[in-house]
């Protein structure tokens, strides 16, 4: 379990995150939404130990995050970032096997268990048939699935996802988040998703943290947080919120003033 208590993060003089608290519980997906520069990604990097908070504390399984080694943190927290460009040819299998790095036992060679875990994850993400292909031969959707697969291969109990569905089409967006949902339900995993897609957040998350200018504006269930008033305050755009006719979750539609 990962908790943040009143954390503040600064880039030099600039305040990026201002005393935000957050608790990621097992089987729960939390979404962070907010405009560009709200501190969403900073929050995520801080929770993973990539940035040092100026004040406040982060607890991983009830102990301060800073008391763990890099390797142990990587065994317990996995990050799905947007894909970097790969300048060396690696196969999908090799790429996903990289998720087992933190579990290395002696001499730097993967164990049979590492290979087996990788195979399972490839099955789970439906990449089995592509495992021998090179990463840069894959489509955007397949590649993002491989990035997720590598994070799942760590078997970490906490998943941090930074805009995992950016640049993906509708079907692939849903597929990625469905995989995250499945992992949370089956493995007692908790997930944090930074996203710009409010409707996707409404559909897949249990809790939503709304951020603006580094501050936490609201936290709660999607139907509590995704209200016209709060969204107008954060995004400065008038929105229409109604219930999705099929799923019943809040559906957010911007109302652009220039359009009649």
């Amino acid at each position, binding site marked *: 379990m990962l908790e943040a208590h009143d954390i503040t993060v600064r880039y030099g003089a600039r305040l990026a995150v201002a005393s935000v608290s957050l608790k990621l519980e097992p089987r729960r997906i939390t979404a962070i939404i907010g405009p560009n520069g709200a501190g969403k990604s900073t929050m995520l990097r801080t929770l993973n130990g990539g940035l040092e908070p100026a004040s406040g504390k982060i607890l991983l399984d009830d102990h301060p995050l800073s008391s763990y080694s*890099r390797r142990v*943190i*990587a065994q317990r927290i996995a990050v799905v970032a947007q894909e970097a460009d790969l300048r060396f*040819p690696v196969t999908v299998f*090799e790429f996903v096997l990289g998720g087992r790095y933190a579990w290395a036992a002696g001499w*730097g060679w993967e164990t049979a268990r590492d290979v087996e875990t990788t195979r399972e994850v490839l099955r789970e993400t439906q990449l089995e048939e592509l495992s*021998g292909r090179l990463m840069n031969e894959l489509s955007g959707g397949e590649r993002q699935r491989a990035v997720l697969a590598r994070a799942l291969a760590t078997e970490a109990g906490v998943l941090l996802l930074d805009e995992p569905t950016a640049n993906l089409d509708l079907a692939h967006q849903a597929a990625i988040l469905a995989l995250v949902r499945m992992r949370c339900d089956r493995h007692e995993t908790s997930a944090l998703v930074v996203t710009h897609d409010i409707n996707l957040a409404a559909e897949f998350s249990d809790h939503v943290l709304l951020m603006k200018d580094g501050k936490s504006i609201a936290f709660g269930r999607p139907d509590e947080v995704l209200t016209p008033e709060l969204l107008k305050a954060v995004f400065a755009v008038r929105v229409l919120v109604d219930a999705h006719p099929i799923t019943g979750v809040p559906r957010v539609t911007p109302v652009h003033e220039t359009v009649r």
Partner: protein
Amino acid sequence: MTETRDLSLTIEHLTLRKTLFVCGVLLLLLACILLGSALVGSQSLPFTSSLCALAGGSNCGLSSEQQAILFDLRLPRILLAGAVGICLATAGAGYQALLRNPLAEPYLLGVSNGAAVGTMVALVFFGQHEWSRPVMAFGGALAATFVVYRLARGRAGATPERLILAGVIVTTFLSSGIVFITTLMDATRIRSFTFWLLGDLSGTTTSLLLITFIAAGIGVAVLALNARSLNLMMLGERDAFDLGVEVGRVRITVFVAASLLVGASVASSGSVGYVGLVVPHLVRLAFGSDNRVVIAASALGGAAFVILADTVARTIIAPRELPVGAITALIGAPLFVYLLKRR
């Protein structure tokens, strides 16, 4: 059924068995090249007698002149070529993984020139101490590595273009340093220095050879121990950090090890270019990008490559010789153009 599964395993990812197999094959190849190189030259030596002598036999039928050619001229030179090849090829593989750039190479980054300046300073100011050459070369390589890394690193990381430009800046700056030091030398030594700058394997001593091999051993071992971390770092430092790599520690370790390799090689033989580009590239093409095999195979392949290149350099216009760097550049420069175009 199990067989096809095993086969697919070897295609998808690297195993210890596959790495050992690759190394075994390359070792055999290296032995053949070493032997072949010992026999050819401005005077060719008889095959069986030389083999017998190399294996340690006493009455093999070689004349004392042939004996001297084999053991005093060719063998030290071949061994030095091998050591230089190990150093430069593995250093290249290390820089490439660390800078996330298949075009990174000690010579093109200016690191070789840094080591050359260090060596020349040692020669001019501490000429009587032989050990000062590799030490100063190491210092020069380390300084050049640091500067080129800082110059190349923009806000978005080291792009290939930035890296190559940084290499050009460091190289040209240090070249003027080399010219400056050359003017401090007396005229008789200048020609041998120009030759040395392009890579000269002829003037070795036992102690220098030993130092080069020790540095090669340490450098390769350190790189090999960090190979799995480098696998992740070459795909992105942030991702590597997230997956548990202590990025800062690995970066420093690999930079120091690569600088040690370049320093040792330049101190004993000058700047032999493009070895660090050609060899790791061919190795990746043949065996994949996993640094555990790339570093091991680059060491063996680098030794074979420089021994071959030097054999050509000393036989093609025999009895006159070319600097070995001229041959490696002849092969490497076109490959560099090809890699740059293909990106």
